């Protein structure tokens, strides 16, 4: 039943105060032909019905608050609830983006200080908080790379962005959006960038490289300095996709390893809730030489006041207003709450948890890169595939254990990939239960594969037909 199925004409779930000004006949205000003739097509319900509908809906959903959510690359950690209270304070949630600066000094201070904290964590100079998500940060960073080359008169020539074959899909997509050509670089047998191939690929056409480190295999690329040197020597810049920063807080700083631009996913590393797919926030931090190209505006602090300013060679704005401020508030509070020591403990425990689980699972699942992992690791379901059970089946079966499945079929370079990111907020007991579930499933693959192929069976719906959905798309409930 959808909202419109529950609708009964004449109901309303919210009543406005009565109109208290003298009314002008509407036709005197707006010409007839500009008025709406079609139905609005909205449901008519009362508040109790709306609450019950969405309460019921929510109960059909998994979340970090409900159970383990080892969705690799997404850092599904616990989101401190105090941050919701903070973001909801009227002084943060009820301020208008166009207020005079003297009325929003608290907000600007918060943004300025968050900029400083992220710069310290990244080991770089200055932050733009504008991007609304990781991919948006990538686009913004790439536009800065472009502007930089343009400034140096090399924009026409430097059209290529090099991206590992293990990279997240947003990297090449962002490169394309920014008007670059995406060049894929292969990985070496240890899962890192193939340095020799890279050497062969760079040249005067190289605008830059996008890299995640630890990469999407959860592996730290030890050759990062060499890589950085190759790119820099070729005149390119290094972009750090910070989706995996949960592994490195206070441990290693991207800027110290040669990166020129970093984006952070506040909704991952800094524990702002993912909200069912957003809002996120993808600030970028850049090195000194790129500060002038940052989006408009940045926050500056002079003469005891915070204010907004347009960087000298700004690429311009990439988002209405200043970014997802409400998300920044939560990330800021998180950093203030944990401090340096707490952030380091986050990464230490995230990495410990991942290695612990990895080590217990590698007997039962193929581990393509058998080395220390960082905050996540990638298994392959290929042994199971040989027995006729796909990674998709395994993922679906996990749902029956009350666990969200790991990320699957990504990165693309691992056959039947199963990408597990436990995060630091999970207890050993939870990890052990997950390990046991995965072992049980491995056993079931051998003894009762049909059971797995027909999974899930404990979920609100059984396995859904995605092909059908795409073949004849039904995207709205027709009126």
């Amino acid at each position, binding site marked *: 039943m959808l909202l419109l199925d529950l609708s009964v004409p004449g109901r309303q*779930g919210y009543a406005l*105060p009565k109109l208290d000004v003298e009314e002008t006949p509407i036709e005197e205000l707006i010409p007839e032909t500009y008025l709406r003739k079609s139905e609005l097509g909205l449901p008519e319900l009362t508040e109790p019905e709306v609450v019950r509908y969405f309460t019921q809906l929510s109960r059909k959903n998994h979340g970090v608050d409900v159970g383990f959510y080892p969705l690799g690359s997404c850092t599904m950690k616990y989101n401190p609830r105090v941050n919701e209270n903070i973001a909801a304070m*009227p*002084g943060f949630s*009820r301020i208008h983006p166009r207020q005079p600066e003297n*009325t929003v000094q608290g907000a600007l201070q918060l943004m300025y200080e968050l900029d400083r904290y992220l710069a310290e964590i990244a080991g770089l100079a200055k932050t733009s908080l504008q991007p609304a998500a990781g991919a948006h940060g990538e686009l913004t960073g790439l536009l800065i790379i472009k502007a930089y080359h343009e400034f140096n008169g090399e924009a026409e020539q430097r059209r290529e962005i090099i991206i590992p074959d293990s990279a997240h899909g947003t990297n090449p997509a962002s490169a394309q959006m920014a008007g670059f050509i995406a060049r894929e670089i292969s990985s070496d047998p240890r899962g890192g960038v193939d340095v020799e191939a890279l050497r062969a690929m760079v040249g005067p056409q190289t605008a830059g490289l996008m890299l995640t480190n630890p990469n999407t295999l959860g592996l730290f690329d030890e050759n990062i300095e060499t890589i950085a040197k190759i790119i820099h020597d070729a005149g390119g810049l290094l972009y750090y996709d910070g989706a995996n920063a949960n592994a490195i807080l*206070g441990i290693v700083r991207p800027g110290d390893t040669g990166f020129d631009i970093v984006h952070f996913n506040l909704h991952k590393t800094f524990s702002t809730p993912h909200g069912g797919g957003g809002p996120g926030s993808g600030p970028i931090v850049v090195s000194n030489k790129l500060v002038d190209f940052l989006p408009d505006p940045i926050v500056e602090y002079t003469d005891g006041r915070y204010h907004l300013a347009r960087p000298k060679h700004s690429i311009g704005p990439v988002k209405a207003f200043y970014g997802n401020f409400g998300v920044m508030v939560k990330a800021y509070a998180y950093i203030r709450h944990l401090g340096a020591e707490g952030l380091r403990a986050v990464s230490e425990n995230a990495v410990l948890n991942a290695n612990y689980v990895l080590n217990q699972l590698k007997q039962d699942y193929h581990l393509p890169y058998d080395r220390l992992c960082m905050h996540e690791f990638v298994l392959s379901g290929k042994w199971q595939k040989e027995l006729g059970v796909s990674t998709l089946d395994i993922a679906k079966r996990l749902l029956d254990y009350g666990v969200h499945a790991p990320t699957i079929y990504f990165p693309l370079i691992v056959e039947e990939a199963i990408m597990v990111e436990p995060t630091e907020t999970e207890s050993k007991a939870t990890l052990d239960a997950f390990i046991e579930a995965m072992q049980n499933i491995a056993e079931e693959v051998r003894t009762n594969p049909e059971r797995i192929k027909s999974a899930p069976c404990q979920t609100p719906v059984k396995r859904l037909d995605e092909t059908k959905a795409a073949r004849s798309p*039904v995207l709205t409930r027709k009126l």
Partner: protein
Amino acid sequence: MPYIPNTPEEQQQMLKSLGMSKLAELFADIPDHLQLKRPLDLPEPLAEHQLLRYMGQLAEKNVNLDRCISFLGAGAYDHIVPAVVSHIINRGEFLTAYTPYQAEVSQGVLQSIFEFQTLIANLTNMEAANASMYDGATALAEAALMSCNVTNRRKVAAAANLDPRWLEILQVYLESQNIELINIAYDPVTGLVDLEAVEPKLGAELACMIVSQPSFFGSVDDVDRVAQWIKSYQGLLVMAVDPISLGILKAPGEYGADIVVGDAGCLGNPISFGGPSVGFFAVTGMKLIRRMPGRIVGQTTDRDGNIGYVLTLQAREQHIRREKATSNICTNQALNALTATIYLALLGPQGIKQVAYQCLQKTAYLRRKLEAAGFKLRFNAPVFKEFVIQADWDWEEINQRLLEHGYLGGFPLKLADPNLSDCTLIAVTEARTKAEMDRFVDLLRGWR
């Protein structure tokens, strides 16, 4: 460590299972000289209780809309938010879930997105909508890019009476793809799109014409005229609309719009210094649907034949198509879209009509009163919830004076358009009362 369950003993146990004894060993793959050998230079941690006090103090440094009476708009508005909304979105299952990759345990999010798509499509009178965009401005930029892709043309026209920041963002996005952005001037008297000003031969090169309804100045245009014009060149009509206005104003679908975008932040989301908000993106026609950016949820059935929802048409998306994707968008604004959905469900058709009607009537009331008080109306076209007045004043200074009386004045247009440096843009929502407006007029009149 209230958020990290591992105790030192457990850490040791786990390390031992890895043949290690120290946490540092976990990072052996990171060249030692690259590792940070000092603590991060960050303020001392604050316990929760201290954090709340500190953040409360920081928040108090801002003048918030509960503490003043706002006539500020220009893209963000003080609309009323039903109290129940935050209770619903704070349910952990919504708040702490992510993109519904595993549909069988994500029906809550998936179905709510399907509702969002439905309600946005209905409200705009279009065929389909996606699962949300970052905000209205980026949605507009994506609409322009998509228009180019679909039409194979490399020029985009946009009315100059769009939000100037949206125009800037559009410019940034288009420039990166070497697409030319052409500004269509507005008539200095009406503030409406001036099609006469367009070079005739340009039409056939345009991927789309972008028009904002209402305009940045609050004015309501005869979009039929624009629609006819761009369609005569086989270009697409892209409309940027205020969703609240659709309770009264003709829907984009009724104008034959091809792509409709807008910011749905005003539908129940806190204003929050401008973000997070949520953009919407609606189209008509399967051809356009298959080129939309972002997530789309579709209906299907499960093994038992029961209805369920899944992410669909994923072949458009970055995780499948990589550099050939229709957009790079991944994380979007799902929770804000959910908020908008709840808002629309609560208000319903009558409620949305009433909000729109109250905005319209209250705006008319204040506009009339200000005119009577001797202020000049800069443009003479009909307006919805915003309008421009003119006076030989520094409006920024006036705003500081208004603040002392608890008012947040309009948006001084000198910050946006040098031609309008003696103008201010006043917004009136359903949240304003007659008494508030009367006093506002009295104050301004008194300073003349």
